[in-house]
């Protein structure tokens, strides 16, 4: 049905997936837009009949995916778990003889509601994809943004708009949220200078990696300092020590001019 960027994930996910209990590699739930999305992908990829979903198979496949994502954040997990219990309930109801009937006496398939929900969601999912294909302003098409007309025309000046101003600044702030929030210093910085900075700092004793980067004012400074550290490490002038995964990284000067060149930094 849909050929999206998730193909890789899907391939991993569906590799070796049989109607028996599947062996699944870990699948990131972030690649799905929720429980309905998971179900739809399972159904469509395996060419199941959406109006006659094999509840036992789909339930065990769904549970396997949820299981491999146990450390989900709690908020997200809620909806996934609700769907899991819905599926299990449907699965068991499918085993019972049908009893519920509508006004005309026809049996009601317990899966109907779920199917309707899946179909509705699938429509929106397709519409969303179509929407994304429309020629979008600033991505595919562009318009004029300044209006300098012939000099014969005097143009009234634009009016003030405080809300617009605040919103605009909010936007700028948000865009640079990941960057340094105070002044951006536009000075050029060389790796050579930062090598000197790092060496001098380390001459007073070992330093944590983050300590060295801490005082850096701009993204450029951070990057340059980082490059300097890499360069020093490459030349075995410093050693980089990390005792375990995710632990602090300690930098020390190599014992100068000694024969420890063979000593492998173990980060």
């Amino acid at each position: 049905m849909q050929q999206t960027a998730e193909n890789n994930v899907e391939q991993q996910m569906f590799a070796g997936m049989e109607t028996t209990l599947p062996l699944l590699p870990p699948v990131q739930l972030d690649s799905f837009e929720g429980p309905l999305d998971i179900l739809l992908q399972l159904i469509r990829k395996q060419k199941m009949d959406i109006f006659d979903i094999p509840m036992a198979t789909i339930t065990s496949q769904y549970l396997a995916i949820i299981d491999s994502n146990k450390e989900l954040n709690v908020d997200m997990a809620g909806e996934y778990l609700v769907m899991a219990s819905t599926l299990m309930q449907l699965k068991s109801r499918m085993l019972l003889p049908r009893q519920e009937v509508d006004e005309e006496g026809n049996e009601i398939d317990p899966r109907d509601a779920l199917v309707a929900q899946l179909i509705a969601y699938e429509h929106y999912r397709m519409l969303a994809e179509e929407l994304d294909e429309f020629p979008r302003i600033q991505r595919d098409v562009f318009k004029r943004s300044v209006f300098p007309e012939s000099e014969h025309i005097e143009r009234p000046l634009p009016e003030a708009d405080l809300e617009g101003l605040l919103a605009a600044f909010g936007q700028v702030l948000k865009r640079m949220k990941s960057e340094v929030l105070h002044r951006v210093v536009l000075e050029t910085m060389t790796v050579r200078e930062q090598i000197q900075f790092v060496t001098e700092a380390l001459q007073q004793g070992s330093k944590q990696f983050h300590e060295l980067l801490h005082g850096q004012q701009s993204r450029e400074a951070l990057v340059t300092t980082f490059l300097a550290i890499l360069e020093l490490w490459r030349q075995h002038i410093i050693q980089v020590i990390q005792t375990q995964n995710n632990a602090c990284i300690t930098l020390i000067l190599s014992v100068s001019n000694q024969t420890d060149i063979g000593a492998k930094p173990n980060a």
Partner: protein
Amino acid sequence: MLSKNIEALILASDEPLSFDKLRTLLERVEPVESSDVRAALSSLEEYYADRGIQLKQVGGGWQFRTAPACANIVKQLWQTRPPRLSRSMLETLAIIAYQQPTTRAEIEALRGIKVSSSIIGGLLERRWIKVLGRKDVPGRPHLYGTNKKFLEDFGLKSLQDLPDSSQLMEANIEQQEKLNLPEPTESTEHNEHEPEA
């Protein structure tokens, strides 16, 4: 002179220029028939159809825009690229476009997953959606709908330009009947009328 004036007005306007506005402005200089304006517009539209700049009808007005074929080169004018829209944002936007006016709970029911504030906030910030009011149910949740800017930015003449959703509507009504969604009584009425601009 008529089509010259039309060209100039559309170029000089900082938002899509509606037909009525265009006609009113043209009238100030000399009397003009609506049919003539219409004819001039469509011949201009055709005239620009295969150029680097095109005359397009978007969000209820006319605007000059660069041709989609030139997108790659025009993008280079700026260092930054517009961020890609996430699937969750697109899905939420699609639901709002077709179901408006609609609440966050209704969107969540359709998507089967929570709609985070940052998604709604992002859509509001881009001015693609707006709050139309509040729904008269407990909690008085916001009712969302699309804005003119949504049509402009996606190059749509009007909401009718969206891909046909009749199938979708049917499926959805059925679904609402069967699932007993949070606010089933009010929400069904939104499906009966066509979304308006």
